């Protein structure tokens, strides 16, 4: 094995190869942003042009346009290069309007909350 020399300290996995490409950015809160990378820095702060948020609930999805976005690097999980030769989403998924996806999101949230509250009510039974 060879170990790092003094010049290697400045090596970085650069986002430069992703500049001006359409990317998928996953954020820590679970959001998925798509857009063209225009700028970045050593903290993985990024500027996305023509950004949109792709909201997915089950088989439904909707792209909500956001415009020019500056993303703080600490929120970034992953930056993925979209292969233009492939479909961005599986073919069975259905594109719906923003209002409908918001309704679907709320329904999913309510179902999760209900499941959580039911579990809490059952906890006293000490079944497991």
């Amino acid at each position, binding site marked *: 094995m*060879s170990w790092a020399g003094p010049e290697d300290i400045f090596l*970085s996995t650069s986002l430069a190869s992703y500049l001006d490409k359409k990317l998928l950015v996953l954020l820590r809160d679970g959001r998925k942003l798509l857009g063209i990378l225009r700028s970045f820095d050593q903290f*993985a702060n990024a500027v996305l042009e023509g950004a949109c948020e792709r909201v997915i609930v089950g088989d439904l999805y909707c792209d909500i346009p956001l415009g020019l976005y500056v993303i703080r*690097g600490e929120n970034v999980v*992953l930056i993925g290069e979209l292969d233009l030769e*492939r479909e961005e989403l599986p073919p069975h998924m259905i594109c719906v309007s923003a209002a409908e996806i918001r309704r679907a999101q709320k329904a999913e949230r309510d179902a999760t909350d209900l499941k959580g509250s039911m579990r809490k009510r059952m906890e006293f039974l000490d079944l497991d």
Partner: protein
Amino acid sequence: MLFFSYFKELVGKEVTVELKNDLAMRGILHSVDQYLNIKLENTRVVDQDKYPHMSSVRNCFIRGSVVRYVQLPPDGVDIDILHDATRREARGG
């Protein structure tokens, strides 16, 4: 610096990176940096059906701060050299 150097030796090998949000990606290690940010090529998500939005992502950059595990090929690890290097670091190298 030890792990940075160690990962540099693994460039070109196939690894599976498991993230803190439970997403796991398998791919060829393309590059790594001092923050242990990772660039993967030829990426496949381990549980494709759960992450439909990732279906066309083949190359990605993963921020070092969100990595939980990096799963390595068993033959990619020379344990003795790793032990020696760790002892050297611990001694104050």
